[in-house]
């Protein structure tokens, strides 16, 4: 009886349906975009580099050698030369990827968790709570992002954990805003009223219906925020406010390299390029992600 009713016929036939599903699968849409695919590829390489740094690096990253300072690329077995302390640039770049990724991801996760929580509370409950939370966020937003991070770093002091906290906190208002805006539109949807009329409590409505429907723009924003956090870490390290000195970070390498721009330009160039390529790839990937997550776009 089921297979013959008029309403059933309106549905795609099982076979057709499965094929259509495959066609529109998320990964396919994403990778059909060449630039996003490139970004994705670079990100994968980066992640592997960070994980397997000890096996990829040719030298220990902190090993100094006063007899081999400021070598050019390829000299004396140093793939990309050495810095003013005689440390191997290639190995430091490889280890630097670790710092960049850890800070980028951890700071964004921190900012996303607390920012989203504040944004959801603000948008869902509205009224006074909303006004209070959002005014505080506006206050934080009033500082330029990097200035806020610098202020926090001077308060916390140097160190990897503190860099993550500082950049994470600076990320909170952005996430709060994005999530709040999304929640404001989602909570007006009929299905939210339906769920409430079924007797659901606010926590259920928020975690089962409001958040899942707000997540797509959040993911895109988070991807872009990782790129931003990597730049922030580099900037802080460049200013000497980042990770502790011997630790290899692209920002601190750039800072050391700037003193030898004439003598040994590779030093600054290579670390600058590492930052550039990483950030560019993440942003390209984020762009592709936004398009792929938009159900109305069928590339």
């Amino acid at each position: 009886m089921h297979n013959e009713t008029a309403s059933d016929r309106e549905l795609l036939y099982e076979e057709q349906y499965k094929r259509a599903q495959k066609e529109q699968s998320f990964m396919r849409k994403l990778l059909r975009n060449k630039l996003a695919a490139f970004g994705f590829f670079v990100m994968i390489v980066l992640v592997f580099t960070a994980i397997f740094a000890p096996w990829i690096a040719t030298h220990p990253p902190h090993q100094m050698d006063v007899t081999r300072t400021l070598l050019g690329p390829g000299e004396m077995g140093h793939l990309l030369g050495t810095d003013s302390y005689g440390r191997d640039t290639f190995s430091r770049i490889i280890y630097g990827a670790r710092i960049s990724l850890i800070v980028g991801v951890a700071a964004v996760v921190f900012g996303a968790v607390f920012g989203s929580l504040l944004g959801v509370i603000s948008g869902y409950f509205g009224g006074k709570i909303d006004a209070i939370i959002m005014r505080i966020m506006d206050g934080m937003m009033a500082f330029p992002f990097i200035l806020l991070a610098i202020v926090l770093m001077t308060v916390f002091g140097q160190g990897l954990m503190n860099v993550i906290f500082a950049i994470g906190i600076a990320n909170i208002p952005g996430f709060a805003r994005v999530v709040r805006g999304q929640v404001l539109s989602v909570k007006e949807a009929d299905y939210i009223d339906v769920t409430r009329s079924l007797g659901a409590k606010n926590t259920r409505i928020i975690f089962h219906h409001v958040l899942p429907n707000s997540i797509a723009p959040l993911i895109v924003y988070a991807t872009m925020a990782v790129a931003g956090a990597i730049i922030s870490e580099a900037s802080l390290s460049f200013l000497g406010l980042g990770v502790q000195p011997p630790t290899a970070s692209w920002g601190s390498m750039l800072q050391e390299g700037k003193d030898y721009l004439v003598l040994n330009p590779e030093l600054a160039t290579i670390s600058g390029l590492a930052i550039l390529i990483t950030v560019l790839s993440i942003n390209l990937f984020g762009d592709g992600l936004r398009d792929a997550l938009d159900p109305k776009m069928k590339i």
Partner: protein
Amino acid sequence: MGHPLLEVKQVKKHFPVKGTIPFVPSRQSVKAVDNVNFHVMPGETLGIVGESGCGKSTLARLINRLISPTEGEMNFKNKDLVSLSKRDLRTVRKNIQMVFQDPYASLDPRKRVGQLIEEPLVIHGVGDSVSRKRRVAELLEIVGLNPRYQNRYAHEFSGGQRQRINIARALTLNPELIICDEPVSALDVSVQAQVINLLKDLQKQFQLTYIFISHDLNVVRYMCDRIAVMYLGKIVEIGSYEEIYHSPKHPYTQALLSAIPVESPYENKERIILTGNVPSPIAPPPGCAFHERCPFVMDKCKTETPPLIETTEAHRASCHLIKKEEE
């Protein structure tokens, strides 16, 4: 005939209007529902009809307690709905379910259909996962959908099928009262009939009581035992289906009825064409709210609000003309 399932007494809902000057509250309000009285008997279908904006959805949301009335009393099975505690409200809600106007917007796009139908059971902690799954399959079958579809998302279904899913969800907890807010007005005419027939079948099968909201008297005709006609937040006429259709007393009801297309070209029907627009619910005209558009307007109508007058048993209308006929 026993006790009413639902009684609505003197219920008002006034939405405050944002003033034109910031931070200065305006004293005006939208009188979306204004002094509404009616009752619903167990097992019957009460139709509520009226033009767009007359407060039908607001009334539904009030009964469902999605919003609180400004004033008034509502009793469901002799329990006062207005003063219920949060917990009691949850239990009462098991018994009052709602099918919303827009079948597209009322299903969460990120959830599978099976999860959506199962949700009321999860919320109220009914049964274990296995028995809940069994219930979902059973419900899909009841509303005429293939149980195999429970792993699909709402956007993969047509409008009529989605409304069936909404109906299945409303049935999940075995409610006594289902409020249908224009359940078919977003659907194709051919699909409308299917959904209405389904609702009728379900009523017989599960002894359901319906409040059936529509702006279309034609649709209401197939469903309802009694009909209430709303105009600008008020009930202007209420009575049995026969009374309303065959001897409407209020000029507004007469106008609505005359707007239904005739069934054969030989049938002779006088059309009453309403002039003017529905007045603003912020500042309804004094006296009878309908007087500006009424073809039979008298001086009295412009100053005095007519009460709901009983014409025959269980048929009431609020119009000054009724008195005149009797005198």
